[in-house]
């Protein structure tokens, strides 16, 4: 991926907290930064509760506010070469006009993400009608074109069916067609294959790869599956307890993970291509409870290398190796801090 391609989305120091009934905050995202360039696939990995989904729902401002609120952060979206919008403080009406048109989202469960009460045609055409004011016939033609582009056989017949008449894989294809109706510049795919079977999941990933190849859409791919990341992403951000704790180009990250959590994750998954039956090296303990995140580095209670500063100070995300950032005290602390894409170019 070209280092000079324009940045489509940049998230800086995002905090997304949920106010609970007793007045305390659940810190789902607690200072996360990442960006994606035009034509790039950014993979975001993390386990449940890492904040990977919430951060991206914040990008589209899809979380109900309250209880969600954002004590800090900026989200910049490049609409076109001249217009850059900050989404977190923008009026919701502005963000709404971007949703589905310039930034589209695909969700995990295709069984529940499509409206069971409406025909597929309605759910596809309404996107164009809403944003471009396109007439019904033209919208339908576009919908048919996209349904066949995402590999739905006999789209003329299928378009007037209801979602329950489609299989899981086919529904996910419909979701993807829906996301592409307005040719968005950014596609956020939140665990798009987690609910699908292996062979169906391979079909969907293949489709996403093809779409990316043809349309050069910038993609943020959220998943817990390191295999999916390895096959799809150009760059990776690893999230833990609401923070990005490591980010690097995909090959670097898999070749030499710098954060003990990323190392642990890679060592703990059984691999289809492992040479012999090695013992898995699990990470001890459990993912943190977001209502009581450990002090300092949130990973320290599970970290095999923890030492003196880990439970007291939060490690900053530093450029430990060129283009490879990690937030861990094991590495020299005199390295330059993460500054986002602008600084990187210099």
């Amino acid at each position, binding site marked *: 991926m070209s280092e000079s391609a324009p940045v489509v989305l940049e998230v800086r120091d995002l905090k997304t907290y949920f106010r609970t009934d007793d007045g305390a905050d659940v810190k789902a995202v607690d200072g996360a930064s990442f960006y994606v360039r035009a034509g790039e696939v950014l993979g975001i990995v993390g*386990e*449940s509760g890492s904040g990977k989904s919430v951060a991206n729902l914040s990008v589209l401002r899809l979380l109900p506010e309250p209880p969600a609120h954002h004590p800090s952060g900026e989200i910049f979206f490049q609409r076109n070469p001249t217009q850059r919008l900050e989404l977190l403080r923008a009026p919701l009406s502005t963000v709404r006009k971007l949703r589905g048109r310039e930034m589209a989202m695909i969700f995990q469960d295709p069984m529940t993400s499509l409206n069971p009460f409406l025909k597929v045609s309605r759910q596809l055409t309404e996107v164009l009608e809403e944003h471009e004011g396109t007439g019904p016939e033209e919208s339908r033609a576009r919908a048919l074109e996209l349904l066949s582009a995402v590999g739905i056989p006999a789209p003329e017949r299928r378009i007037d069916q209801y979602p329950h008449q489609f*299989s*899981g*894989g*086919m529904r996910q294809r419909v979701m993807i067609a829906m996301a592409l109706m307005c040719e968005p510049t950014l596609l956020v795919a939140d665990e798009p294959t987690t609910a699908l*079977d*292996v*062979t*169906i*999941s*391979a*079909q969907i*990933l*293949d489709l996403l790869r093809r779409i990316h190849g043809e349309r050069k859409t910038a993609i943020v791919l959220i998943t*817990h*599956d*390191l*295999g*999916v*990341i*390895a*096959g799809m992403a150009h760059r990776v951000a690893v999230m833990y307890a609401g923070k990005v704790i490591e980010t690097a180009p*995909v*090959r670097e990250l*898999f070749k030499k993970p710098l954060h003990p959590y990323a190392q*642990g*994750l*890679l060592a*703990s*998954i*059984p*691999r*289809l*291509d*492992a*040479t*012999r*039956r090695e*013992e*898995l*090296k*699990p*990470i*001890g303990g*459990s*993912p943190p409870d977001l209502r009581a995140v450990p002090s300092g580095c949130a990973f320290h209670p599970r970290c095999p290398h923890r030492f003196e500063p880990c439970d007291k100070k939060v490690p900053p995300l530093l450029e430990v190796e060129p283009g490879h950032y990690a937030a861990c005290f094991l590495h020299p602390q005199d390295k330059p801090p993460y500054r986002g894409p602008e600084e990187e170019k210099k």
Partner: protein
Amino acid sequence: MTLLAVSDLKVHFPVEKGFLIKREVGRIRAVDGVSLELERGGVLGLVGESGCGKSTTARAIIGLVPVTEGSVKFQGDELTGLRPYQFRPIRRHVQMVFQDPYASLDPRLTVGAIVAEPLRNYEFKRAEAQKRVLELLDLVGLARSYAERYPHEFSGGQRQRIGIARALALSPTLLVLDEPVSALDVSIQAQIVNLLVELKARLNLAYLFIAHDLAVVRHISDRVAVMYLGEIAELASRDTLYARPLHPYTQALLSAVPVPDPEVESQRKRILLEGDVPSPDREVVGCKFASRCPLRARADSAGRCEKERPPLRPLPTVPGESEHKVACHYAELSLGETPPGAIVPAEIE
């Protein structure tokens, strides 16, 4: 010694229609002629996609769903057709661990009571049961003090340990594990897999390990059976199955699994299957995989695949390998080649 022998097991669920008087208009062939064997201390992995019948097979074996046809023998005793009271003495030797550690533990009971429940069902004395509970907690790596606490206080991984402790209470010889790690977070899965490997070695347990994650199955199993639409498509020892899959479905399945290595991924070619798994309510005369099979187009000029059901037949691929069975008319065609997407571990090459 053969611990479990399943032969030609069928579980069909009738589809009934009609008003007041029900008549059968079709049947869902959830399990449609499965045969497998499991040795004492062995691990048989059962893989397949959703709807392939792997879970129903497990449930039929332990008597949770009625068997339509076929036989299930445990240590030589026939289990099908047993009445519940006749099943009772056998059930203590065959225990099950379920997928969802959140749903399978009674939230109103303490951990101690949950683990002790099977003991109480088999008339253990109170003090004896209590002692056994503490042993079991040690065994699965939980603190003894947890016996007084309730399931909701624990994380998914810990709950699965509780479920395993309960399954082990009566010192069974066979554990049927239905997707025991798939509901858990990635970093926790390895803890449970390691625990299962360790327990097996220590207690000489046999596992019927059901999962959709081929990498996990590879890690834990000695032998692996791949299921498709209620039938076994291929069955072989672990290394053979993963390195030299002969059934086109197994090949496609293996090539579809992403590997966490960008270098490998960028080189891999995949066999992409077209379409979805057909519904199991249709009677298929020939091979059930024929409608999606990539091999059929180039091999089956005679139209055998649609006319004739391929039997699960032995096909030795590695010298000294006793058991490699495939249900494909044209499996020989795959013999010499390395299928695209397959990953061959160095030690077998």
